[in-house]
């Protein structure tokens, strides 16, 4: 890796994003709209005393899921576009290394995700009174990690897809099972053993658990830090796969 080339590549990807105003608008607006939807869905639900409201529970998890899903999609399509437009082959004839490109995407989309997560969190906390025991900064930090996880998985899947059509098909294959088993629908300790094993293998489970820990405890917990630590390890594995062509 070369810092100059990495910086140039990150800048180039952000510049491409800047020219695409509609994508920026979607990145910023969609999470807020979906949160609004969830807020009104559960507005009239009774809350058992001493428990967080349903909105608090779901909105918190959604703050982690948005960046993950959106960055997964954006990354796999962006990478496929590099390939189909011929720019990828051209880049490989320049001094740029594969890692420069992979980390360039990771950093650029990670930054975009940080903006997105900050806006979504601001809406959740200040418009809809999201209440968590832990700090909003931790929530945003974990959401950014989720986004980077999405970028890494997107890069990995783009290595197995020849066309954009195929890349989009990886969403149900890679993302949906993780959403189902991450503990949002059924608590992880209430699942059948083999489902729990699957859930343990999915990186998103740790991301969601980390968010739930922040929701339940005022101080960062040991379990949260462990979850945060598991996340990047899997991410690195994803990256290495993505480097294969």
């Amino acid at each position, binding site marked *: 890796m070369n810092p*100059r080339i990495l910086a140039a590549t990150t800048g180039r990807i952000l510049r491409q994003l800047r020219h*695409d105003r509609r994508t920026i608008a979607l990145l910023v607006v969609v999470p807020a709209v979906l949160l609004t939807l969830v807020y009104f869905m559960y507005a009239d639900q009774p809350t058992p005393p001493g428990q967080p409201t349903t909105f608090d529970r779901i909105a918190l998890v959604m703050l982690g899921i948005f960046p993950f899903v959106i960055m997964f999609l954006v990354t796999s399509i962006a990478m496929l576009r590099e390939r189909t437009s011929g720019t990828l082959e*051209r880049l490989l004839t320049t001094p740029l290394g594969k890692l420069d490109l992979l980390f360039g995407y990771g950093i650029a989309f990670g930054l975009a995700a940080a903006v997105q997560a900050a806006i979504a969190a601001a809406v959740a906390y200040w418009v809809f009174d999201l209440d968590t025991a832990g700090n909003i900064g931790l929530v945003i930090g974990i959401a950014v990690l989720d986004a980077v996880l999405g970028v890494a998985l997107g890069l990995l899947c783009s290595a197995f897809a020849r066309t954009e059509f195929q890349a989009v098909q990886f969403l149900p294959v890679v993302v949906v099972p993780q959403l189902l088993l991450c503990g949002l629908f059924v608590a992880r300790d209430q699942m059948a053993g083999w489902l729990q094993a699957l859930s343990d293998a999915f990186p998103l489970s740790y991301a969601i658990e980390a968010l739930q820990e922040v929701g339940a405890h005022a101080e960062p917990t040991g379990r949260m830090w462990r979850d945060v630590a598991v996340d990047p390890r899997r991410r690195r594995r994803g990256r290495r796969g993505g480097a294969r062509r």
Partner: protein
Amino acid sequence: MDDAIAVRDLVVDRGGRRVLDGVTCRVPRGTVTGLLGPSGSGKTTFMRAVVGVQVVAGGTVTVLGQPAGTPALRQRVGYLTQAPSVYADLTVRENARYFAALYGRGRGEADRAIRDVGLAPAAGQLVATLSGGQRSRASLACALVGEPELVILDEPTVGQDPVLRADLWARFHAMAAAGTTLLVSSHVMDEAARCDRLLLIRQGRLIADDTPAAVRAAAGVDDLDEAFLRLIRAGEAATTSTDAAATREATA
């Protein structure tokens, strides 16, 4: 060591078909060498082998003294793909600056490369809004911006206005005079006359490797198009007579 490119017995198979069949040739430094042949003759595959992105089945390709595809060569070789490969959602200037940065060059070099291909008036325009010819010139600017020692250009002048085409060829010769080696592919014969040397390729085989004057002399005609045709016919006649001889031997 005066050769920028030295190719020996290059064989390439793509999609189960033999695309290059034992090509051997040299490209001397500081020249403009034309790679000519009809569509599908293997020109692009040959160029890909030289930049090192093509899997080869046999033979060797030596570029600037090193095996093709060596990482150290990437700084020294510029490649223009046949389909313009620049970012459509960036402006011409942003594209040129990005590729300049990859080669460790600055904004000044990027702006000069844009001027050199005659795109200065459109520098601030998104590539997506350019015409086909402008787009391929934007791509050309990105190939030249690193000031490489060896430039591989796959059909750089297709769809360009005649005046501009003449400008580009003048530019190529100025670069060669300054020591750069250029390998330029084309399927237009009138461009062949502008080259210092010619490689004529057809169905994966090299038919001629000489100066335009020598090619004309060998074929006995002044028109290069006609010369190319005669060389092909002569080659075919030779193969047919050897085939016929082989058949006669087999029957005997």
